[in-house]
């Protein structure tokens, strides 16, 4: 559900597809006025397609991914799950670094790369995160979708991708960019890339079992709930949590006068 998940999931299908999708969607006319759209961000012109795709993904999740994740969760101690999670976060660190640089944030790039060096060595190939626990350097989360946003590219409409889930034309192009940046996959067999991403996806899903179940239960319209959460979450990441301006309703905190 989170972009990082979609990123993980990205690898489940082929890089070819990703690149192709990126090219196709990059061709969709994007609005350059990202902020002007703010209040209309929940306009969902592709809603009927999106709802169909959302349903399809949910079927796959229900019949394949979630059962596998339950088994995984049962078999793997929580600590091991955390180590695996750390490992894949660390693998992503070079991409965080490059994207920080592309966004003109050398300090974040330094933190991301410093974390990568420290955790890859002191943190036993990234299974531990001593950079956070000992040095207080928290994870930097940057991806090419955010970079494109910082460069001024509008997101385009909300888009649910097959298997990859919630996205937008901009974030889809971002996935392709990140895939191209994942240098290590150029040097290992594709089968190894797939199986490692498979582990990543299943492990991540297993850590979200309770949360996703709760969200499904408590939401009034799960599709709308996920769409809103995705849009808010991405916006927050792009603004680097500084703005704290949540949501995309300009009038979010205005009490409407009347009765």
């Amino acid at each position: 559900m989170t972009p990082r998940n979609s990123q993980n999931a990205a690898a489940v299908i082929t890089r070819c597809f990703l690149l192709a999708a990126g090219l196709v969607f990059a061709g969709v006319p994007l609005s350059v006025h990202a902020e002007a759209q703010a209040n209309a961000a929940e306009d969902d012109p592709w809603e009927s397609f999106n709802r169909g795709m959302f349903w399809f993904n949910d079927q796959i999740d229900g019949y394949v991914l979630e059962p596998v994740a339950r088994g995984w969760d049962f078999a793997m101690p929580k600590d091991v799950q955390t180590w695996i999670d750390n490992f894949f976060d660390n693998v992503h660190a070079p991409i965080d670094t490059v994207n920080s640089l592309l966004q003109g944030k050398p300090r974040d790039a330094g933190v991301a790369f410093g974390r990568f060096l420290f955790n890859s060595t002191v943190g036993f190939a990234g299974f531990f995160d001593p950079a956070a626990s000992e040095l207080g350097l928290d994870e930097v989360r940057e991806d090419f979708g955010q970079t494109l946003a910082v460069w001024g590219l509008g997101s385009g409409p909300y888009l649910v991708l097959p298997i990859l889930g919630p996205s937008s034309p901009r974030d889809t192009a971002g996935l392709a960019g990140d895939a191209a940046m994942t240098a290590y996959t150029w040097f290992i067999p594709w089968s190894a890339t797939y199986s490692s991403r498979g582990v990543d996806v299943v492990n991540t899903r297993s850590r979200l079992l309770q949360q996703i179940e709760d969200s499904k239960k408590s939401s009034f319209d799960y599709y709308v709930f996920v769409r809103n959460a995705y849009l808010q979450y991405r916006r927050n990441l792009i603004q680097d949590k500084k703005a704290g301006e949540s949501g995309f309703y300009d009038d979010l905190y205005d009490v409407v006068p009347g009765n």
Partner: protein
Amino acid sequence: MMISMTSFRATSALLFAAAFCLVAASVGADEASAPARLVVESTSEQVLAVLRDKGVSVDRRLEELQQIAYRRFDFPTIGRLVLARGWNQLTPDQQRAFLEDFKRHLSLDYGRRIDSYTNQTVTIIGDRTEPNGDATVRTQVNGGGTSPVAVDYRLRRIDGDWRVIDIIVEGVSLVSSYRSQFQEIMASGGPTRLLQVLREKNEQAATTARAG
């Protein structure tokens, strides 16, 4: 009271986020929002005390948490912000019913997560004054084997008291989340449908809570 015994078993979870906490260090204080920060700090401490008091029965602790939540969260404001322009489409009776049922929904929903408390700690990392006079208090929840989670509280001065009107987890605002969902329901079925859906949801949740 529409609030039944069942919802007594639940807590407001809103509180919960505040709850997972050991309030620690302070950074970057702001003059005007400092009192709001104190509210979040003391509320967190109260909640923590209840959560850690394992000698007391779960039901009793849930009840105590709920009382704290009802004191600190401004449900009428939260409810109105969630409905936004839709608020005026409700008759005064419907408005009352909505606020009551929405409060109950939040209590049930978050209350059943009390079991998930696993010694997380909360650090207040800053506060600021918003352009409209509200205050935002930023916290970070650590522990639980995940990266730190950013939880911000938005407070408003109501009747001389700082009260929480929104919780924002990793940039995702609770008010915004409910607003989009309720708008969808209002658009298709109006206030009647909204109240009906809300009531059904509460009945479901209450049943699950009893079964669980």
